[in-house]
């Protein structure tokens, strides 16, 4: 699936998006896999209460299933307007 990063999450990881092969069943499982990869991922996902997630471009939560999902995005709370 495609995994996208925005704002300081993108800066910490150093990538705007990547394709990830995962067996994780939920967003939280995917986060655990990413955290285990490298320090920059661990830094970006150190505190998931500071993060928001969108699953297939809809705001979701970390318990959400990844079944059939094509795109997951991680970002800080939004600051529009």
């Amino acid at each position, binding site marked *: 699936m495609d995994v*996208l990063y*925005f*704002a*300081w999450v993108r800066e910490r990881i150093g990538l705007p998006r990547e394709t990830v092969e995962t067996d994780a069943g939920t967003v939280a499982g995917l986060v655990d896999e990413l955290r285990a990869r490298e320090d920059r991922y661990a830094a970006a996902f150190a505190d998931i209460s500071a993060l928001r997630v*969108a699953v297939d*471009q*809809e*705001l979701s939560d970390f318990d959400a299933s990844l079944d059939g999902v094509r795109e997951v*995005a991680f*970002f*800080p*709370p*939004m*600051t*529009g*307007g």
Partner: protein
Amino acid sequence: MRIVVSEAAFDVGAEAAAFAAGRTDTGAIVTFTGVVRDTGADALEAMEIEHYPGMTETALSDIAERATARWSLGDVLVIHRYGRLVPGEMIMMVATAARHRRDAFEAAEYLMDYLKSRAPFWKREITAEGAGWVAARDEDEKALDRW
């Protein structure tokens, strides 16, 4: 309903006039314009706005549709820019048209409250001292409770 997500500047007067044109059943039009403001101790050189292409348009449309379902509105306009803006530039605009002013005012506030913390935009401030992401404010999240 018109949703615009663009890097380009827009003309508030022209947008407001176009939004108002030809309406005969509208008693109230409310417009709100967001402007890049320099308030910090360090002079703001620019504001960089990042967004999530694809999701942004959908999120704004959803917010506008929910406002339309909740209030009696003739029309809704939402314009939001991204990219690099300098103080004094217009970031965004919402407009609502309704038969009565209360619907138009409340719907415009609702749009703004949701847009602040549910539309995927992130602001980064550039000052002489460096750059930093604007943190979401608790008050903005709490503002949603009243709806």
